């Protein structure tokens, strides 16, 4: 009884009686919180300044005609980059058409059919290694496989390069998505007499789909912005592509080309193209987030 009374005044103090600490625990707490907030704000600086610069320099030339007209010749004004927008969409689409089925089906194999097999382990390791490979290597690969054999720069070659770039992202996020499906759902399905195929198609894939879509959108967002794999696969073109087997313009290569020329109009157009590209990538990311959060 005595002790309760004597310690009562200390009850709400955050230092023990007789403590020699100069800084109390709650002060430490405030200092650390301050640091975290400060550093978080610091990370916003590059992001915000990129968006600011792109908007400031890109907006003046942004009008509908940039999506419909061809790039201006050197020293000329006006024009747009419709062929580059189309080229980026086509090549990212091609890359997706190649990489998504391979990535998703491989993920199904290594997660559902033979998770502990040698092949599955090899696929996992290779996919992880691929994520770390510089994108220019994907370009070199596509150059060797497509450009060198067909003898021409083409949208196909660009698509293959982007597919190699996207494949590991799609495969690994799909595997995570499948891993995230509760084992209890699979058990219930098997318990009701479903085959493995039925279980995967009716239960596992629908449940994993939002997360797989997120992976695909992230891969698309990354691929759309890449320049290196396209420079020596699709090259560039001043004109509308007539087929998939000829050199094709892309936003990223256009930005690269136009930002290094001495003509102010072209440089400004590179800013506008950057704005379009950033908007496209942001849109893809936001879509991915929305689709994913709707489910979870």
């Amino acid at each position, binding site marked *: 009884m005595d002790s309760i009374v004597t310690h009562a005044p200390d009850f709400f103090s955050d230092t023990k009686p007789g403590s020699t600490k100069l800084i109390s625990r709650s002060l430490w707490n405030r200092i650390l919180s301050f640091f975290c907030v400060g550093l978080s704000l610091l990370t916003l600086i590059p992001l915000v300044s990129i968006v600011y610069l792109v908007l400031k320099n890109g907006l003046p030339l942004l009008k509908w005609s940039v999506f419909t007209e061809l790039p201006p010749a050197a020293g000329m004004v006006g024009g747009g980059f419709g062929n580059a927008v189309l080229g980026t969409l086509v090549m990212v689409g091609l890359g997706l058409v190649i990489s998504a089925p391979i990535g998703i089906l491989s993920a199904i194999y290594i997660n559902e059919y033979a998770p*502990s097999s040698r092949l599955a382990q090899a696929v996992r390791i290779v996919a992880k290694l691929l994520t770390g490979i510089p994108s220019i290597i994907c370009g070199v690969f596509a150059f060797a496989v497509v450009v060198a054999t067909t003898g021409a720069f083409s949208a196909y070659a660009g698509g293959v390069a982007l597919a190699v770039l996207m494949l590991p992202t799609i495969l690994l996020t799909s595997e995570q998505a499948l891993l995230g499906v*509760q084992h*209890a*759902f*699979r*058990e*219930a*399905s*098997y*318990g*009701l*007499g*479903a*085959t493995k195929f*039925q279980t995967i198609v*009716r*239960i596992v894939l629908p*449940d994993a789909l939002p997360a797989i879509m997120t992976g695909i959108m992230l891969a698309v967002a990354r691929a759309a912005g890449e320049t290196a794999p396209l420079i020596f696969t699709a090259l560039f073109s001043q004109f509308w592509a007539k087929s998939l087997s000829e050199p094709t313009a892309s936003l990223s290569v256009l930005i690269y080309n136009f930002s290094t020329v001495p003509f102010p109009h072209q440089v400004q157009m590179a800013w506008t193209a950057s704005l379009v590209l950033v908007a496209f990538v942001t849109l893809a990311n936001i879509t991915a987030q929305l689709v994913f959060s709707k489910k979870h």
Partner: protein
Amino acid sequence: MTETSARSVDAKHVSPGRPDFLTVRNFDFFYGKKQALFDITMDIPEKRVTALIGPSGCGKSTLLRNFNRMNELIDGIRHSGDIRLLGQSIFDKTVEVIALRRSVGMVFQKSNPFPKSIYENVVYGLRIGGESKKSVLDEAVERSLRGAALWDEAKDRLHESALGLSGGQMQRLCIARAIANRPKVLLMDEPCSALDPIATVKVEELIHELKQEFTIIIVTHNMQQATRCSDKTAFFYLGKLIEFAETQKIFSNPVQKQTEDYITGRFG
């Protein structure tokens, strides 16, 4: 597997069913090198409730999961001996495991409805069996939900997500989903262990109803539950079947010392 209409008529009115409906003979089971079941021999009677009890790790769930060959989802398992349903070995090469699992339904410890509507949960077994006629599916939904005592609560929200149900309702939905397949045997792996007492009573009453139609095998940790809802009880210990008899006899007058120790709470 032949089912004569004469027997099912019999079962409804007079006979409690075949005493050797499901038979286990000299059954050994291994996970890799570890032996989980030792020389199990028992006859499970038709349209009765058989409880499998025993301390954790005694093999009761392993045995249960052999009746529908769910253990085959695990790598490195093997068995010797035999399990027969209506005289037919369930391990026979001519038996398709997907067909076996339709006639030996299972309800899991943690209710696991699919993230689909109540309706789609119930008809899942029929759909994967190739049934798509709406009249058949509708009929199965009503019959199964009535059978699982869930119809009144669910009939106005059949197309809402099953994940909006309460824990007890979810478990009864899982029972409805299992009986929609019209199984011969219903396996229940601690079906009430995640439920509150009121939901538990409902499921136990349901088990009592269901044995009119199905042969039920239930694994339980709860000895009161075994006494309340089972006709026969099998006590397992360290992978061996120690004693198997009428529930009343097991709990009032067990033959084996280990059984007595377990049911009186001296170990386990």
